[in-house]
């Protein structure tokens, strides 16, 4: 493992430092948005469509208005002149992409169950929900479009003004002739059709907000349970036509996000509009069943993948074709999410010919958007299922087919056929470590034994090797993808007069422990105690610049910005120390928080002292500005490419179809690690979410478009009893794209685990001739697969 640069004789990075965030979360002191006290606040509640698709004939709000304590009731018609712009979509993926205008409240028609049609303000939360219940909306129901393939036919067009249900067709076809040649010369061609079911992200804290206007100054402070305070602020300004200088957005403690809070939501815009209208503070807290309808869903794709391989099982070409469910409207990043996987359908294999096509389609369901992994879990699933299909067809062990196809170590940096440059990788030892850890050959033996005994218990072993592109993102690459923002991150590092350090970051953590890790980075670089470093974030008036937290970007982009800013501070400190010690800057050494003159133990100056000198400015080099602080805005030169191998072992009961996940091994390579304890936590949580997708979770709609899984009683988020302990390991292949050699870890577990589990399930059932089971692999589906003729 190459080390992160340090000035500390006792390295801080790489240690399992306990999180400074924890005490207040553990004692109930932490303030989530619903915990914030506010006097004289109005409670907002929303009338939502109970049907999937309808014309709004009339809305009768008279009964609601008559309730004591109701302050206002508004429909889409009442407010429509107040929106400057429709709800924002920041990713116009093709020049002709179709994007239906979508406002915080529906005006004439509703297009999914949960679409907002009216809003109530009341003095009390209970009164507000009573008022919502008393509002009568007359709908003329229209036939909904719920199925992707049916949507593509345009037999029923959801948004008549668009003339089609196809939002866009996006293709990446670097060399079709080469691809055709690969397929025509192939000894083996395997095809898979896989359904990526819709998922409900289900952060344990639903969304919520509190907006506090200062009527006299015209300023607004919005506290929102969001991952993106900075982006939200800009989007509110643009959508509502309010000067950005009047808007402050604060993300207090946020109870998980997983992409679902990476959005600009109707409720945020509504609350802003109504706070402006009434001059009063407004509070809204989403209920769980509302969250299932009104917060974006994830996944929702039908994938077709074809692999062409030569007689040795070497993959020559890959063709991937997706239908992607946008839901009823495009939210902030909806159309771009499937494309984030579009470059990775060849996984970590050296494949010369490639094509990818994605058709984005509207349906009468909740809009989809980013959910942990966003596009990359889907890509990984398709290729890893594909590799198993190929191995099965050729009668080769799944580990062996992967070995034969890995991008070899010597080929890094590797230019992939879809056009990425993989920064670094060393896949083979990673796979071997995982196989060894799980006891692969022993498990195969055990499987053989059970099979030869005709046991009703079926053992399955599933491999998944993954690579992901994360660290969103080089701004120029985002430009080429038509994304309407950059991918940089900002940081300020400031030495306070007392020698303590203040770090201001543009990242917006919601469980990732940034305060702890960022302090470690600075402490290491400055050779000081991390307790002397304070980290400020998630408040646009404290941290005015930033692009927030998603896409496993915070460390490799935001952490790098902090690392660089710390370096600048150190450079300036060196100038000051040299000036005061009357030596040349090059003659100084820096270690453990002290500058000393090389070869002399007497001539020394502590960093704290330098900070004080910078503050008093009594004796600085001529022309030097007072105070010791630096800002860096880091735009990464490339994505980072973490990788790893996950192996799931399942036991299936032939009589019931029950699957038990009995063992799970994950060996991940996320480059250098700042805090291995936090890294492991991220992986474990991601694995659990991916297992949830593989075995339990699905947003189910009935044939009229009613969501049947709107509570946690119906939508099966895994509990502790459904999961085993995870056995983790690491390899370390630093990224050359940033000075700390870090890669990012937030999504890895969730990317790797669904194919590992499904490959294990299919492996267990292979004796029944089962080739695939769609997710979630429920006992019912498994039983049916076993008992099919």
């Amino acid at each position, binding site marked *: 493992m190459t080390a992160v640069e340090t000035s500390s004789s006792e390295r801080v990075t790489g240690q399992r430092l*306990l*999180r400074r*965030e*924890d*005490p207040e*979360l*553990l*004692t*109930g*002191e*932490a*303030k*989530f948005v*619903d*915990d914030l*006290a506010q006097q004289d606040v109005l409670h907002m509640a929303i009338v939502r469509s109970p049907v999937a698709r309808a014309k709004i004939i009339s809305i009768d709000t008279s009964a609601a208005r008559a309730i004591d304590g109701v302050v206002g009731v508004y429909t889409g018609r009442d407010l429509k002149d107040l929106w400057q712009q429709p709800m924002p979509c920041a990713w116009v993926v093709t020049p002709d992409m179709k994007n239906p205008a979508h406002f915080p409240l529906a005006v004439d028609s509703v297009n999914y169950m949960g679409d907002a049609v009216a809003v109530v303000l009341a003095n009390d939360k209970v009164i507000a929900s009573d008022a919502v219940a008393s509002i009568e909306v007359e709908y003329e129901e229209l036939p909904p479009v719920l199925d992707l393939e049916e949507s593509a036919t345009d037999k029923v067009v959801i948004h008549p003004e668009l003339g089609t249900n196809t939002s866009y067709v996006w293709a990446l076809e670097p060399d079709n002739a080469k691809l055709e040649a690969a397929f025509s010369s192939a000894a083996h061609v395997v095809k898979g059709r896989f359904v990526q079911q819709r998922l409900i992200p*289900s*952060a*344990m*804290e*639903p969304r919520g907000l509190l907006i506090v206007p200062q009527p006299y100054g015209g300023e607004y402070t919005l506290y929102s349970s969001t991952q993106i305070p900075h982006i939200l602020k800009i989007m509110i300004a643009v959508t509502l036509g309010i000067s950005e200088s009047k808007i402050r957005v604060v993300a207090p*403690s*946020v*109870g*998980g996000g*997983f992409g679902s809070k990476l959005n600009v939501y109707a409720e945020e815009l509504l609350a802003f509009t109504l706070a402006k209208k009434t001059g009063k503070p407004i509070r809204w807290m989403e*209920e*769980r*069943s509302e969250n299932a309808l009104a917060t974006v869903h994830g996944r929702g794709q039908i994938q077709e993948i074809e692999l062409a391989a030569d007689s040795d099982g070497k993959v020559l070409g890959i063709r991937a074709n997706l239908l992607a469910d946008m839901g009823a409207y495009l939210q902030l990043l909806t159309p771009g999410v499937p494309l984030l996987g579009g470059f990775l359908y060849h996984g970590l294999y050296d494949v010369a010919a490639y094509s990818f096509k994605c058709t984005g389609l509207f349906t009468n369901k909740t809009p989809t958007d980013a959910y942990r992994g966003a596009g990359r879990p889907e890509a990984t699933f398709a290729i890893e299922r594909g590799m198993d299909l190929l191995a099965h067809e050729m009668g080769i062990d799944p580990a062996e087919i992967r070995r034969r196809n890995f991008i070899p170590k010597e080929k890094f940096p590797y230019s992939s056929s879809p056009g990425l440059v993989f920064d670094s990788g060393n896949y083979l030892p990673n796979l071997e470590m995982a196989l060894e850890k799980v006891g692969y050959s022993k498990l195969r033996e055990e499987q053989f034994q059970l099979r030869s005994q005709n046991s009703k218990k079926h053992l399955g072993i599933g491999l998944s090797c993954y690579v992901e592109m994360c660290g969103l993102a080089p701004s120029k690459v985002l430009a080429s993808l038509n994304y309407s923002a950059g991918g940089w991150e900002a940081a300020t590092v400031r030495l306070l007069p007392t020698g303590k350090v203040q770090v201001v970051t543009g990242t917006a953590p*919601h*469980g*990732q*422990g940034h305060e702890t890790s960022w302090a470690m980075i600075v402490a290491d670089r400055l050779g000081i105690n991390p307790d002397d470093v304070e980290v400020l974030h998630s408040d646009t008036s404290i941290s005015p610049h930033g692009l927030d937290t998603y896409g496993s970007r915070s460390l490799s982009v935001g952490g790098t910005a902090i690392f660089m800013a710390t370096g600048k501070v150190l450079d300036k400190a060196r100038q000051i120390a040299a000036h005061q010690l009357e030596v040349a800057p090059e003659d100084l050494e820096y270690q453990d928080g002290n500058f000393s003159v090389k070869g002399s133990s007497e001539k020394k100056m502590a960093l704290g002292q330098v900070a004080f000198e910078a503050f008093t400015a009594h004796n600085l080099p001529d022309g030097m500005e007072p105070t010791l602080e630096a800002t860096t805005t880091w735009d990464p030169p490339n994505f980072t490419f973490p990788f790893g191998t996950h192996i799931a072992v399942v036991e299936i009961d032939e009589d019931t179809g029950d699957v038990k996940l009995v063992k799970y091994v994950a060996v991940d390579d996320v480059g250098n690690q700042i805090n291995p*304890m*936090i890294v*492991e*936590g991220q992986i*474990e*949580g*991601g*694995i*659990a*979410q991916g297992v949830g997708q593989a075995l339990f979770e699905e947003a189910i709609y009935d044939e009229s478009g009613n969501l049947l899984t709107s*509570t*946690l*009683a119906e939508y099966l*988020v895994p*509990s*502790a*009893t459904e*999961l085993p*302990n*995870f056995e983790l390991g690491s390899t370390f292949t630093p990224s050359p794209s940033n000075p700390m050699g870090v890669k990012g870890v937030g999504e890895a*577990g969730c990317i790797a685990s669904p194919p590992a589990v499904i490959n294990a399930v299919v492996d267990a059932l292979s004796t029944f001739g089962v080739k695939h089971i769609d997710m979630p692999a429920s006992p019912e589906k498994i039983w049916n697969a076993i008992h099919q003729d």
Partner: protein
Amino acid sequence: MQISTTVNGLSHTNEVEARTLLVHYIRDVLRLTGTNVGCDTSSCGACTVLLNGESVKSCTVLAVQADGQEITTIEGMASESGLHPIQKAFQENHGLQCGYCTPGMVMAAASFLHENPSPTEKEVREALEGNLCRCTGYHNIVKSVLAAAGEMGGAR
């Protein structure tokens, strides 16, 4: 209706509506906001508190049912000498990420370890079945509870 409760050792007498849930009494009337709400079907356990020492989901109990009873919330766990051993074990074993499920997990663990001071891993998992966490994958939560058991004298 008037109710009297003892919460974290302090007595309270308050006026509540018959339909007020215990969790809303705790959060909105007493302003003890450490207890969280994560669902509307008593599925998540984020609202778990101790009622006379036993864990209950406070969204399934009416405030009036707590009349005359003793309640402990997450705010009542730490003492002047510092974090409760369960809280400490959660920090030391990284048993929390966003922290939203954490108060409920800690309270559920407290009641469970009282009943079963030296549990197995499987028993811990079963005991926490009604408490959902979306961040940690439970691995470190289970580890935390086992470590707390050890610390509190129940190690196996």
